[in-house]
């Protein structure tokens, strides 16, 4: 019986020739990540170990993105705790305000993850890097602390679901629509404890940012990780961003999958997840009249340059609806700069949007766009749980950047084709 792509990466990092689903292993870590919310708990746990050094100062990575720029005194104290720790332990990859971006957009851009890596992060959306052919998964702060100490983590080897992609996406349809479609189909625990492996001839037509969006939301189906087969586009992206050499793993021909789904990308429609679960999806032709108060375009799911560019292409020369607040958050400084140089910031500001410095901010109801009781937002983020963006009676509708931008113009959830 052959191994899946994920199983091969895990076997190599556990020093084993072969692993099977369900096996418990200790695997070597190529990177250990935390943010300003999860790292303080990890630091508190790390200090109980009485160890002077982190296992590898180039592999431990901290990004101040959630409540940064510091939203209040407590948040400032947490960031300071991370900053002091990283200074003391001489951590190379500490990203503070000025260098930081939203972690899962920043790490690929900085070349900190390449194909074949094993990465853990104390953030559930760490599964994003599977788009580059790495095994990466979200863990908690204690796992982060132990990862920083010994450079290893325990894993139960997952089985996998295969998604065979074919065809090509239509205009205004993106990776977000595909992953929302999939979560709607299999449910929020449809991939619980398992890998989601994306393969097939359709992969080639998906941009790296579409793929990052899709693996980012693997956790929203309960998955341990999402992973894309590595192709020329992946290798070109890695070569452009990293000096490290990728290791390409391919699933065995006789790898066993729990299930296989064939997805025709040309049939995917704009898809929106209604409150309060990411699996509560409807296609754009079944939305009805949903009036909105706020639009958020950004996050680790959809704050990539192509997302910002797509939103700008829809908003160019138009005004957003009265009584709608539109918040655009490029995910990293480089994306922000490129958006500025290409005139996209002007487009947004002239349309009546604001453009924020990188931050997770409103996605998790932290700051920079909190909703009042009963308010509704269309957001390109990844979760629409009760109270996620603010008051427990507020509502979040998850959508693509194209749908979010079109909705900002009309003030209700709108098919991008309607405004173009």
């Amino acid at each position: 019986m052959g191994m899946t792509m994920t199983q091969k990466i895990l076997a190599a990092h556990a020093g084993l020739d072969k692993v099977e689903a369900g096996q418990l292993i200790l695997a070597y870590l190529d990177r250990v990540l935390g943010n300003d919310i999860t790292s303080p708990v990890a630091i508190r746990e790390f200090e109980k170990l009485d160890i002077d050094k982190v296992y590898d100062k180039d592999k431990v990575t901290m990004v101040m993105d959630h409540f940064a720029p510091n939203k209040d005194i407590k948040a400032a104290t947490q960031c300071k705790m991370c900053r002091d720790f990283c200074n003391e332990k001489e951590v190379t990859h500490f990203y503070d305000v000025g260098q930081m971006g939203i972690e899962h957009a920043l790490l690929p851009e900085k070349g900190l993850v390449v194909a074949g890596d094993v990465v853990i992060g104390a953030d559930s959306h760490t599964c994003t890097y599977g788009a580059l052919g790495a095994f990466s998964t979200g863990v908690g702060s204690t796992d982060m602390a132990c990862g920083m100490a010994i450079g290893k983590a325990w894993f139960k080897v997952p089985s996998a679901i295969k998604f065979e992609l074919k065809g090509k996406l239509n205009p205004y349809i993106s990776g977000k629509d595909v992953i929302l479609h999939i979560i709607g189909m299999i449910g929020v625990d449809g991939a619980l404890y398992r890998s989601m492996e994306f393969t097939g001839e359709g992969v080639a037509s998906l941009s790296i940012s579409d793929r990052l969006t899709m693996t980012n939301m693997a956790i929203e189906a309960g998955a341990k990780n999402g992973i894309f087969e590595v192709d020329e586009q992946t290798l070109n992206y890695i070569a452009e961003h990293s000096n490290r050499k990728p290791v390409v793993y391919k699933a065995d021909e006789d790898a066993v999958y729990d299930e296989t789904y064939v997805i025709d990308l040309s049939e995917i429609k704009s898809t929106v997840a209604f409150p309060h679960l990411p699996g509560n999806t409807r296609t754009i032709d079944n939305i009805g009249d949903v009036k909105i108060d706020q639009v958020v375009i950004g996050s680790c799911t959809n704050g990539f340059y192509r997302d910002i560019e797509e939103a700008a292409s829809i908003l160019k020369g138009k005004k957003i609806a009265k009584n709608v607040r539109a918040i655009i958050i490029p995910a990293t400084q480089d994306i922000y700069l490129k958006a500025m140089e290409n005139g996209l910031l002007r487009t947004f500001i002239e349309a009546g949007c604001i453009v924020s410095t990188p931050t997770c901010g409103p996605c998790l109801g932290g700051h920079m766009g909190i909703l009042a009781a009963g308010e509704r937002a269309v957001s390109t983020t990844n979760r629409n749980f009760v109270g996620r963006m603010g008051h427990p009676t507020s509502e979040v509708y998850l959508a693509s950047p194209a749908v979010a931008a079109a909705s900002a113009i009309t003030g209700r959830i709108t098919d991008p084709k309607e405004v173009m």
Partner: protein
Amino acid sequence: MKFEGTVIKYGDNVDTDVIIPARYLNTIDKKELASHCMEDLDTTFTSRVKAGDIMVAGENFGCGSSREHAPIAIKESGISVVIAKSFARIFYRNSINIGLAIVECPEAAEAIEEGHIVEADLDNGILTDKTTGASFKTAPFPQFIQNIIENGGLIESIRKGAVK
């Protein structure tokens, strides 16, 4: 490990955002986190929970954000054990790592009702609903995980050289 307590019951897909809303994640103080536990789902939880109470829930308990603050808040609020039909995987490993007892048992989670008195005998894998008399068998943890629990969590396991 053996616990006995009164049941507080919730449904499916209880996410970590309702267990501890992100607006309170600007602190790592355990007591402060516990004071907001379950707030967006059940405003009565913090006032009625008693030390030793048992939380029972449906499918996919603890889904969403990886925040370890969620099992920390539950543990600190006094809950002795969480019984669910299934757990989201990050919450599951976080609970083991910090030493919050959790039990996956769909039959028990279905049958046990709010307010019942339940005994959880984790050493022998038996849950007993003392209100109805019904008892349920649970699957034991794999040895590797049992060792982490017996050592008092992952940090202690590393300190003792049991995980290296």
